């Protein structure tokens, strides 16, 4: 009898030990990556990074044009993707909550949400780059917009679905047409959640590299022409990291640090927005 107890206790101790070990190893590993990133990235972080252009091989410089290009491409992507995402989410939560179309869109959207981003790059290459005959910043923006849409659709739908029906009924009862109810009641109540979704989408695209490789391509120089190849931080990191030049590799690390800090900041802000709502 006691041997059974002893064995069960031993098994329990062993398995729980393994679980603690898994958590320790997993988290330590990730901490190691962030540590290396901080260590190597900070070494090259100075003002020149934000004020100078990407250098030719073998000389010092900064990442200004890459950061600028990334911001432009991302802003355009958000301008394209956010309205479509919010409208589609609105349809799913407000107009067709139980319709067949909503069910299908939800399923497809979830697949798009985790589809490999390089495939989106190929799609936009076929859609825009090939007919236009050259790479362009606009194509990069469209590729990123396609990554934005599923994130925004998902959060908008979820957040609008949380708005109590009594609020909508109150709006309808005083004679407001449906779209005014959605705008003044639905969006207002779900605002922080929708903003969270948008921030998460920005976080997602700010580090995306694969879909930009053959849409926006890259550019050594300062350019804000959306009809021509444009530099972006992730693609520059990719190119510089794989180069044999010391200065470029250092800039790649610094760029990686900048991206990581951006993404983490955005995610934390997004999280605190919804966190506060849950706390109420």
């Amino acid at each position, binding site marked *: 009898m006691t041997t059974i107890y002893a064995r069960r206790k031993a098994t329990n101790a062993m398995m729980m030990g393994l679980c603690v070990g898994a958590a320790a190893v997993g988290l330590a590993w990730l901490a190691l990556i962030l540590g290396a990133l901080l260590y190597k990235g900070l070494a090259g972080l100075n003002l020149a990074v934000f004020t100078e252009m990407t250098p030719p091989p073998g000389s010092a410089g900064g990442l200004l044009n890459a950061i600028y290009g990334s911001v432009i491409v991302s802003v355009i992507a958000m301008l394209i993707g956010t309205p479509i995402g919010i*409208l589609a989410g609105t349809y799913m939560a407000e107009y067709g909550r139980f319709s067949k179309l909503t069910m299908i869109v939800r399923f497809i959207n979830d697949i798009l949400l985790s589809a490999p981003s390089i495939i989106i790059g190929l799609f936009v290459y076929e859609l825009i780059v090939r007919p236009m005959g050259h790479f362009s910043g606009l194509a990069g923006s469209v590729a990123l917009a396609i990554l934005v849409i599923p994130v925004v659709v998902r959060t908008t739908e979820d957040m609008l679905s949380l708005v109590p029906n009594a609020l909508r009924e109150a709006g309808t009862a005083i004679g407001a047409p449906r779209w005014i109810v959605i705008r003044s009641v639905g969006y207002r109540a779900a605002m922080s959640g929708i903003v969270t979704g948008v921030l998460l989408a920005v976080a997602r695209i700010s580090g995306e590299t694969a879909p930009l490789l053959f849409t926006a391509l890259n550019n050594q120089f300062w350019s804000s022409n959306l009809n021509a190849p444009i530099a972006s931080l992730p693609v520059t990191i*990719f190119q510089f990291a794989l180069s044999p030049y010391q200065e470029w590799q250092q800039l790649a690390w610094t760029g990686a640090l900048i991206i990581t800090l951006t993404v983490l900041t955005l995610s934390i802000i997004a999280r605190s927005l919804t966190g506060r709502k849950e706390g109420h």
Partner: protein
Amino acid sequence: MTLAIAERVDNRREKVVRHFALTDTIFHWACRLAAIAVLVILGGVFVSLVSGSWEALAKFGPAFLTTARWSPVTETFGALAPIYGTLVTAAIAIVIAVPVGIGIAVFLTELCPRPLRRPIGIAVELLAGIPSIIYGIWGLFVFAPFLQRTLQPFLIDIFANVPVLSDLFAGPAYGIGILTSSLILAIMILPFIASITKDVFDTVPGVVKESAYGIGCTTWEVVRRIVIPHTRVGIMGGVMLALGRALGETMAVTFVIGNSHRLSASIIAPGTTISATIANEFTEADADVYVSSLMSLGLILFFITFIILAAARYMLLRMGRQAGA
């Protein structure tokens, strides 16, 4: 007099109502079109990949899938090496990451001291959002040299005289290669698996677990007999999602896989995956059939991930219904 006023009011009211009806219809249709746009995008992805890969598929036929030769010079292309690399790296990554991820989830839901539970949970979720290029650059500069000095020579030496394993771990130790990519992928999908598994573990009703504890079960027995059976479908869904991510992952792998189209039995040797091949070669592809072959690779990846992701979503959906009921 009053009649005229009433008529005027009626007229204005009618105008306002008509205006509202119009704007309402416009907004309704704008929303509906946006929802349909989501479907159109996925359809567009499929159509454009098929049309882009048509030339290569027509030229090479089904043999494209079974040929390992990839030669831009003679314009013969076969997808076997990238397909093999994609499946092997993803499989090894899943085998490593799933037990560790579930371990982290068990730790977070059952063992972790309450004040630490939320911070660690949030940290895990934040790590799941770090872009893959970060893992790639770390893999290239830190992890691959480290493996080249330590793990790889060790594996080569220790299995040198074991029949099958000596082929599996045949050197030289380059640092980069299939095994390195698999390990990086495993680290990358780890937070992802952990946070999904933790979420589905949280759906187990406390009463069920407490009744198991009440009859004297140990923590491990509660996890093994109650929590895991209860959430089996959800865990499977999460694992499939992670698998989908590992299969399609580009940047983390491209840095450290070595981009070699030679099929090798050794998992230490350099190889390639579908996404790494596309990322490395697409802008260099000059011939039409070269571009088209890369598109065909994309189409194959699309098919594989679509099936995996659809299965994953179906499972998570079933799980959600269970939890809702």
